[in-house]
């Protein structure tokens, strides 16, 4: 399979122009710029806050220099506190074309939209010449998450993704799983799979921190739909979620925005250190996907039982449907039908292999269902 060469560093599997608003006040202008090119690989991302936040700053630097991104347009109102100069320098240092529209300096909405579109037009022309180079599975970072989970998630889609994860890791790929708040009850199993006893201790500490954090909010990472779908407790949801990690050795614990230094299976510690400050660690599934992308994920495997429709800006999302009833109802949104395991029409190994093959095809350029349907969700908030 062929990827996209980048001037410095990792290769991409998509060649996206991102238009990034740096405060909610610039959102409309950024959206108007990006919408005109939505069919041509121009994605809208952004951060809504006016006040500085080290986490958001780090994530924005990471996603705008992601291997799938070829060029970056920043849209600033002008008076917000986001370090737009620092972000533009980071992008420029990565060898990518970057331009900043400052609405207050450009003369308002209409002039800013025109300036932005003019730049995007040129960026698209220059990106068409991006060199294609062979990319190997060992260069790939794959995130695995679950969302809209029900009782079937942990029976079919999650363990099948675990099989796919093991196959990818055998080929040298990097796989990241996450949500320490959804691994409550699994910490001892994970510690036993850690590459070192020291890492095992760190994993246990990260889950204990998550349990404390969620206790402060009065409930766990558990939506009412989870219970309606037959999941009774956070431990049960966790055990099902945990099976996404397969059987490989856990070789590292990373923070959101940290790219794993080597291949193999990594756990992302999504809960901030210290006292709870800005609310829930991840307010929705797309917040998790954004963190995966910030940690380098070229592709995200997303398992769902209840039935999610989301995709993402920047990196494709492959949806693995756990529930055969959901597949019948929402099949157009799903890439893989893992629910047939429940019907005894396939086993975990077969579906695991199918997911692996889907990662390969997606990396070679085949659009996922959410890409074909135009999904480009992105959310970034304070943490």
């Amino acid at each position, binding site marked *: 399979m062929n990827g996209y060469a980048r001037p410095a560093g990792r290769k991409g599997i998509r060649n996206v122009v991102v238009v990034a608003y740096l405060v909610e006040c610039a959102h409309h202008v950024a959206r108007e710029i990006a919408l005109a090119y939505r069919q041509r690989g121009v994605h809208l991302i952004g951060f809504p806050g006016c006040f500085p936040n080290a986490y958001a700053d780090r994530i924005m630097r990471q996603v705008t220099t992601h291997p799938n991104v070829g060029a970056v347009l920043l849209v600033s109102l002008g008076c917000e506190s986001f370090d737009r100069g620092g972000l533009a320098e980071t992008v420029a240092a990565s060898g990518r074309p970057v331009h900043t529209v400052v609405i207050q300096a450009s003369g308002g909405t209409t002039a800013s939209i025109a300036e932005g579109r003019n730049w995007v037009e040129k960026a698209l022309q220059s990106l068409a010449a991006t060199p294609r180079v062979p990319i190997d599975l060992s260069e790939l970072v794959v995130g695995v998450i679950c969302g809209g989970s029900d009782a*079937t998630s942990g*029976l079919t889609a999650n363990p099948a993704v675990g099989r796919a994860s093991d196959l990818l890791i055998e080929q040298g790929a990097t796989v990241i799983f996450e949500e320490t708040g959804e691994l409550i*009850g699994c910490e001892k199993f994970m510690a036993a799979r850690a590459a070192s006893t020291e890492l095992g201790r760190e994993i246990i500490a990260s889950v204990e921190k998550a349990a404390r954090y*969620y206790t402060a909010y009065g409930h766990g990472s*558990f939506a009412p739909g989870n*219970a309606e779908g037959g999941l*009774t407790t*956070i431990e049960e949801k966790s055990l099902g979620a945990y099976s996404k990690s397969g059987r490989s050795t856990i070789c590292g614990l990373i923070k959101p925005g940290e790219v794993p230094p080597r291949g193999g299976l990594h756990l992302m510690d999504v809960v901030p250190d210290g006292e709870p400050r800005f609310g829930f660690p991840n307010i929705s599934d797309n917040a998790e996907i954004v963190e995966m992308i910030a940690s380098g994920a070229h592709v995200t495997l997303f398992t769902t039982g209840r039935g999610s429709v989301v995709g993402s800006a920047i990196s494709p999302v492959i949806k693995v449907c756990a*529930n055969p009833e959901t597949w019948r109802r929402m099949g157009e949104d799903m890439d893989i039908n893992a629910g047939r395991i429940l019907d005894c029409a396939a086993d975990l190994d077969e579906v695991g292999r199918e997911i692996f093959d889907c990662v390969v095809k997606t990396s070679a350029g085949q659009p996922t269902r959410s890409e074909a349907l135009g999904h480009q969700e992105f959310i970034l908030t304070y943490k």
Partner: protein
Amino acid sequence: MTNPDDPRLLRLAEEDNVCAVRSVVPLGESIRIAGVEYPVTAEIPTGHKIAVRPIAAGEKVVKYGAPIGSATRPIQPGDYVHTHNLKSDYLPTYTRQSGKHHLD
């Protein structure tokens, strides 16, 4: 020899005292568990849990070979197992009902 378990049961680990069901088990049917027929006392939707052993109040409910919480009342084989008879040992479960309370 016939299968000791109804084919709708999905046993995840030998030591489990609950199983998942592969498809809906309607109220009023009976279900074979380890060679014994038990009455189904509530409809069990796809993927949800059914008890396959007697579980005392306070006893751990085990699925995937690991505890998923404790029984809040005695549970018989064939019973539907969910929020009405099982609670977390870590964090209370958030439902739409408890959510309303949460927002008050």
